[in-house]
């Protein structure tokens, strides 16, 4: 900190201290971020160091075919504190949702950042390829052309939400505008896909913090999603899972079992095939998540979830379990033999407990019949 006083970007640490937080607060924040990213406690020092020395990161945030729910979710982030993200954590140089400037002044701000380079490109929305891209035009240029220009100089690219990651609702059949996720257009750079409709606000903040803290992309799964937030199925972190394992299900909404908080699988819950943090981080600073509030997961972070309906019918097949090979294969066979969906789940959940298996299957079938009666 003793070097020249000439203009340089302020570090996280400096900005936090400047805002009146103590060193202790700062370390708490670093510890939180480490826990949040699913890291060992030994990583706390590394995060703290990175935050102390990393300058504010320029960010360009493009909006294409979208509904702005991702921007809205981002400003819901509780940690880091939402106002602080904008003033102190990143330099959000272009976003149609919040920036003061319009028209030429807005475009000029973006181009100034593109010229300097070293920015993160965030993309909210899909890009329509139909009709030469005429279905999304901003400042007289197609979103396709804009994306290519902004991506060329980006240090990293984040695809916010299911639109940019998977195409989302506008890409559902028959996809009238040929809405296309960005990884199918930009192929020469790593793209972090952060699916969800929208993604959880704290997850969005966490992805940015990961890059800033470590200066590298978070570890991604084979679909380009950060493992820290998309490593588990909603089903595996669901607090209603014990009811599922026990074969206790709501038969319809607001019935006696729904009121008891039983598993929502039979009213269509997509938790078993959906990878997201809803069951762990939950929504809006941990207040609830869809299942906790009585509605099944609709699978909004999964590719093609819109075409995997109807939402209120139980999962049409068991392909969602294909990821866990052994449990799955056995589950499928059992499902065929017994002919009861829940039997497959009982097996899948209890592959290690062969002895109890039959008992559970029978109990499950019994329950299912009781509910029907």
């Amino acid at each position, binding site marked *: 900190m003793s070097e020249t006083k000439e*203009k340089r970007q*302020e570090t996280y640490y400096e900005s936090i201290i400047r805002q009146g937080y103590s060193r202790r607060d700062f370390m708490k924040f670093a510890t939180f971020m480490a826990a949040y990213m699913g890291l060992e406690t030994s990583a706390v020092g590394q995060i703290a160091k990175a935050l102390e020395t990393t300058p504010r990161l320029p960010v360009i945030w493009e909006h294409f075919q*979208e*509904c*702005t*729910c*991702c921007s809205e979710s981002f*400003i*819901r982030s*509780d940690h880091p504190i939402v*106002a602080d993200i*904008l*003033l102190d954590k990143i*330099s959000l140089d272009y*976003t*149609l*949702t*919040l920036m*003061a*400037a*319009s028209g*030429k*002044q807005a475009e000029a*701000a973006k181009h*100034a950042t593109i010229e300097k380079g070293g920015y993160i490109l965030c993309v909210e929305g899909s890009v*329509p390829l139909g*009709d*030469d891209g*005429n*279905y*999304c*035009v*901003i400042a*007289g*240029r*197609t979103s396709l052309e804009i994306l290519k220009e902004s991506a060329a100089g980006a240090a990293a690219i984040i695809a916010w939400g299911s639109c940019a990651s998977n195409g*989302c609702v*506008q890409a559902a059949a*028959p996809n009238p*505008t040929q*809405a296309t996720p960005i990884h199918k257009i930009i192929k020469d750079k790593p793209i972090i896909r952060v699916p969800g409709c*929208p993604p959880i606000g704290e997850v969005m903040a966490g992805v940015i913090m990961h890059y800033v803290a470590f200066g590298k992309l978070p570890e991604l799964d084979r679909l380009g999603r950060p493992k820290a937030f998309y490593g588990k199925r909603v089903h595996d972190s669901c607090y209603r899972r014990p009811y599922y394992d026990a074969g206790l299900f709501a038969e*319809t*909404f*607001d019935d006696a079992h729904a*009121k*008891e*908080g039983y598993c929502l699988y039979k009213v269509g819950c997509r938790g078993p095939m959906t990878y997201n943090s809803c069951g762990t981080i939950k*929504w*809006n600073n941990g207040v*609830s*998540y869809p299942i*906790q*509030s*009585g*509605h099944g997961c609709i699978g*909004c972070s999964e590719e093609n979830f819109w075409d995997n*309906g109807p*939402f*209120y019918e139980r999962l049409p097949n068991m392909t969602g379990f294909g990821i866990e090979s052994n449990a799955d294969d056995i589950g499928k066979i059992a499902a065929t033999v017994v002919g009861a969906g829940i039997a497959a789940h009982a097996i899948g959940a209890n592959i290690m407990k062969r002895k109890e298996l039959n008992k559970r299957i029978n109990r499950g079938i019994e329950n299912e019949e009781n509910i029907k009666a």
Partner: protein
Amino acid sequence: MSERIVVDPITRIEGHLRIEAEVKDGVIVDAYSSSTMVRGIEEIVKGRDPRDVWAFVQRTCGVCTTVHALTSVRAVEDALDIVIPPNAELVRNIMEGALYMHDHVVHFYHLHALDWVDVVNCLKADPAETSRVAQSISKWPKSSPGYFSDVQKRIKKFVDSGQLGIFANGYWGHPQMKLPAEINLLAVAHYLEALEWQKEIVKVHTIFGGKNPHPNYLVGGMACAINIESQGGLNAERLAYVGQLLKQGRDFVNQVYIPDLLAIAGFYRDWGAIGKGFGNYMTYGDFPTNGYNDPSSFKIPGGIILNNDLSNIIPVDHRSTDEIQELVNNSWYDNYAEGKDAGRHPWDGETNINYSGPKPPYDHLNVDEKYSFIKTPRWKGKPMEVGPLARVLIGYASGIPEFKNVVDYALAKLEVPVDALFSTLGRTAARGLETIVIADWTVEFFDTLMNNIKNGDYRMANTEKFDPSTWPAEAKGVGYMEAPRGALAHWIVIKDGKTANYQQVVPSTWNASPRDPQGQRSAYESTLIGTPVADIEQPLEIIRTIHSFDPCIACAVHLYDEHGKHISTVNNISACDV
């Protein structure tokens, strides 16, 4: 000689909006409003399970999240004659009330304020004087000189860093920025506070709907079961949480938003004569207290005012094919079989995309031809302005005491006559005034819900007709509501358990649409005429009036494209589509 100025992108809105305006001698003489993005949601929901449609159409907009979901479940329930339990109606009303608080506060501070507040100028303020002003207009506790001084220091370091982020290239120092530095500082402090506050009020949605944005709805009621003796449903803790959030929300509205709104408006009284519309206002009405089928029970009344005549409120009939119609004469869709200038009622609506605008990159639209993806809705051939101003005027003219009280209070406070409401200033003020009223109602709805539960009514969903096998072979429904941005309706046709047709006519379709065959302008285009522009390089005055409508453009555009992927081959002959 006039000059054409283009503002694209219009920022601090939802969606993609372009304004082209003719300016002559420093005044706008004509204007064109265009949306340049489409997705095709109405086509996508065709053939799907009507119970699922709320989720698809909810994604029309993530800013006014919930409104399309609610309108959709109402449309399906209307078609299938499903009556929801009173608790579900109350929960929906509470969620909608929470949305109003969130949406209007965020609009005021984060989408609109930077048109009136000079962020950089707040560095010149005396924090002690800001504190004195703050304490004179509100009892909000965060108002000490030290508090404002800290905010000012923070902004100073931010500005000194040279990285202005979202404030880069703003209209700082523009001659139309009229606030004293002390008021600018007050507004900037509350911009930051509101940014933090807004993530709290939405937790009402999270508790009832599981998440925000895009909480879950359900045909037949709501999915959040009540069980006061279990952690499986809404119990005392969950409900107390909602009650607290609503009261905190109302405090923020009454102690921060409204005092700031009136304080800022006092320096911009001249905008009470700018941005006048054509004088037609429409509401559908909302907040049922005895079911959606009993409009007389709605807290916000429906109706139409023509030519600023507050003495005569005309009813609206969504089902009459002669009243609400959509036209495509200036929109990038195939004309209807009946001809270019014909309109269609939404139950018979049809919208085949056919982009015929200039090939990008372009500098100007050809406004002599079709020039927007937004269709043009009309009520009996007349353009209508919808939104907070329409609601406040119709509530006021209908003699609803809550609306009369807030309007009279604001007019007295600002010392302006009633016709100052028909303006950019009036639109922005009306948004705040209705928030006062709706915040109170929302707390009332909550109290009623608690009372119902206390009396042993735990019902939250009517699932008698949830199974499609119970449905008639064919049914038609209309769902409508007052979204924060104005009158919103969806029309559905159900055949054999599937969605056969679906049309959305949304607030920004009414306000932002291109002109009709008679050359009548819709609200955006009409209200810009006569607006002075101090510096044609800086579109500040244009965005002030446009932002006073709180545009939601992804909502306004909706199409389907029968030709799917082959549309690009059709485009070449589109010039011949007349």
